[in-house]
């Protein structure tokens, strides 16, 4: 039962005019593919056009990256993704750290048909690659979390629309990534994006944004600088135009590895960069780019609201089941998040089962999740930047039934935020850029720490793995980062420690040489043993690491390596 059956919950409900736009886009790509196949377009000309429709050429075939704006899907959309996995791919998809989904076995000739199928359900692959503004990521508990100040998804949608086929910023020096959160606890790594926005309420219900720019991971990790403490909502688009215009004009184009905004910020210095942005902003005709409350409200009105009306005894029901079933209690403890509404709860469905491939979901799982979302969570599903899925609005008295349904689907692993909740790029098993495989080492670590009690004992700890320096697995901002490198044809792994993605952002440090897979796993084991032996009660890994220092852990972990 839903409050408004015509609108999807938690995401923007496309109007006929928006759907027509997506159809035009699919038809445009169909023409471009035909021009490529007939020879009218060379590969050099075609490549940027296909990338701006999410189509890469990878190791085994073309790969299609479909946008999941701010990570929210309706049940109908997830079913469509399942259908695409079955009909056009090999029965599965891979959820990414940018809240998108990738299909690995796509045929160029069929890509336009897939885009047309996506358009039917208000989905697309627009700007999921290429040197343009990419998918806008957001908080996986947006609109549900008890600790949230502003639901950032309306503004994420505004930014999505504004950046779509932007005439000036479709051929930037390099890709450009936005993240937006409305929570003082930064779950989107805002400081590691080209632009990171934290929405905060001001006086009289107004909304403003803390603006960070020039952050990023990749080859040269950088923490974004704060440009504005509080940018008023009506100036949001004008200010974004100013940042993008400075970047488009001055960003380096002579060296692929020095073309991101972070390098421009470093080259100019934070003051000079901020001055340029403010000068551009001062010159911009504000009225033209004004984001009026009428526009915000019109877009907000296209978001369906969840049906929230739990019976009074819902929390008591949940407690009862938790007392009776230890496994369920453990899962609730690790995989749930408090909801703002009484009697509700958000839950994480782990895509990191023991022996699995982090972030992969089969078409069967996707269909089943769509059904469960309709039954238990107002038909809404979220994708997290840690490659899991979330049901945001579950009645506490129905959680036990949901959990029982998730188990047989392999979706009830109680490891959210624990050592086996590993973030991992596809690596050399799929990706043409990778230097090393990243999935097998994730699986080895998962096996090593498979014991649920041990994971609980270790507590919150993030391991991120990237198969190359491009850092799609975000290895820089994890407690333990793993970077795959190629040493004379052999796969080696460089470990970093002490990275953090949240409001106390930090880049992980290298404390030893790159190691072969099994030795790298052994070093991680010794680091964990050291932590367990030396922590004070309730101290998280990151705090122990900070307290005892890198040198201490290096001596303990690399001593025998």
């Amino acid at each position, binding site marked *: 039962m839903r409050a408004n059956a015509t609108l999807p919950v938690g995401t923007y409900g496309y109007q006929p005019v928006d759907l027509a736009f997506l159809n035009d886009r699919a038809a445009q790509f169909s023409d471009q593919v035909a021009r*490529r*196949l007939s*020879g009218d377009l060379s*590969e050099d000309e075609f490549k940027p056009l296909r990338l701006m429709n999410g189509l890469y*050429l*990878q*190791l*085994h*075939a*073309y790969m299609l990256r479909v946008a999941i704006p701010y990570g929210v899907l309706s049940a109908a959309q997830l079913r469509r993704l399942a259908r695409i996995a079955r009909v056009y791919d*090999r029965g599965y998809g891979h959820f990414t750290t940018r809240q998108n989904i990738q299909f690995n*076995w*796509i*045929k*160029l*000739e069929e890509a336009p048909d897939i885009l047309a199928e996506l358009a039917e359900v208000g989905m697309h692959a627009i700007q999921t690659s290429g040197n343009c503004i990419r998918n806008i990521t957001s908080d996986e508990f947006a609109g549900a979390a008890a600790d949230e100040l502003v639901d950032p998804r309306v503004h994420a949608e505004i930014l999505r629309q504004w950046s779509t086929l932007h005439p000036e910023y479709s051929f930037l020096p390099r890709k450009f990534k936005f993240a937006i959160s409305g929570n003082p606890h930064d779950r989107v790594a805002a400081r590691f994006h080209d632009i990171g926005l934290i929405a905060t309420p001001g006086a009289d219900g107004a909304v403003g944004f803390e603006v960070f720019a020039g952050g990023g991971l990749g080859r040269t990790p950088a923490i974004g600088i704060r440009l504005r403490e509080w940018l008023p909502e009506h100036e949001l688009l004008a200010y974004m135009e100013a940042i993008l215009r400075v970047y488009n004009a001055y960003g380096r184009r002579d060296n692929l590895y020095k073309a991101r905004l972070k390098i421009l910020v470093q080259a100019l210095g934070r003051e000079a960069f901020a001055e340029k942005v403010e000068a551009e902003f001062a010159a911009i005709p504000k009225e033209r780019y004004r984001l009026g409350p009428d526009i915000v409200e019109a877009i907000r009105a296209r978001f369906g609201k969840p049906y929230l009306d739990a019976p009074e005894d819902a929390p008591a029901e949940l407690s009862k089941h938790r007392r009776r079933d230890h496994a369920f209690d453990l899962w609730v403890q690790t995989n749930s998040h408090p909801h703002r509404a009484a009697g509700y709860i958000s839950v994480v469905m782990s895509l990191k089962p023991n022996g699995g*491939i982090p972030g992969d979901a089969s078409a069967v799982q996707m269909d089943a999740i769509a059904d469960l979302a309709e039954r238990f969570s107002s038909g809404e599903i979220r994708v997290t930047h840690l490659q899991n899925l979330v049901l945001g609005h579950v009645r506490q008295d129905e959680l036990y039934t949901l959990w029982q349904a998730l188990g047989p689907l392999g979706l009830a692993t109680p490891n959210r935020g624990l050592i086996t909740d590993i973030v991992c790029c596809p690596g*050399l*098993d*799929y990706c043409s850029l*990778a230097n*090393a*495989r990243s*999935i*097998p080492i994730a*699986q080895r670590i998962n096996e090593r720490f498979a014991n649920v009690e041990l994971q609980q004992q270790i507590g919150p700890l993030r391991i991120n793995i990237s198969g190359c320096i491009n850092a799609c697995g975000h290895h820089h901002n994890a407690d333990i980062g793993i970077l795959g490198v190629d040493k004379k*044809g052999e*796969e080696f792994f460089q470990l970093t420690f002490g990275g953090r993605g949240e409001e106390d952002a930090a880049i992980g440090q290298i404390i030893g040489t790159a190691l072969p897979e099994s030795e790298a796993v052994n070093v991680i084991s010794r680091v964990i043993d050291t932590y367990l032996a030396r922590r004070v009660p309730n101290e998280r890994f990151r705090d122990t690491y900070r307290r005892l220092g890198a040198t201490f852990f290096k001596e303990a972990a690399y001593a025998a390596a």
Partner: protein
Amino acid sequence: MTANRLRDGQVVWLAPEGRWAEEIAAAEVFDNGLIDEAIARARIFEEQRVVLDVYGVELDPAHSGTVPVTERERIRAAGPSVRPDLGRQAKGATVHAS
């Protein structure tokens, strides 16, 4: 010599008589001294929009068959090492990632 087929992205290997085969076992093997010239000749298939990104793959001298020396090329020839049910390996191709 390998490439990806333009229309479907499939990994292919240049076999005798200018045929692009899906199995590395069918690939024509060139001596090191002749590979550059062979690649230059094979560029015609890019111009004809048959394949993309033609390049030569070094074979492992320790093996008698067509086994590439790098992990990357073994994975391309066989399929993802973490999904033995997918790719050419699922159809009985004999190249396996280590």
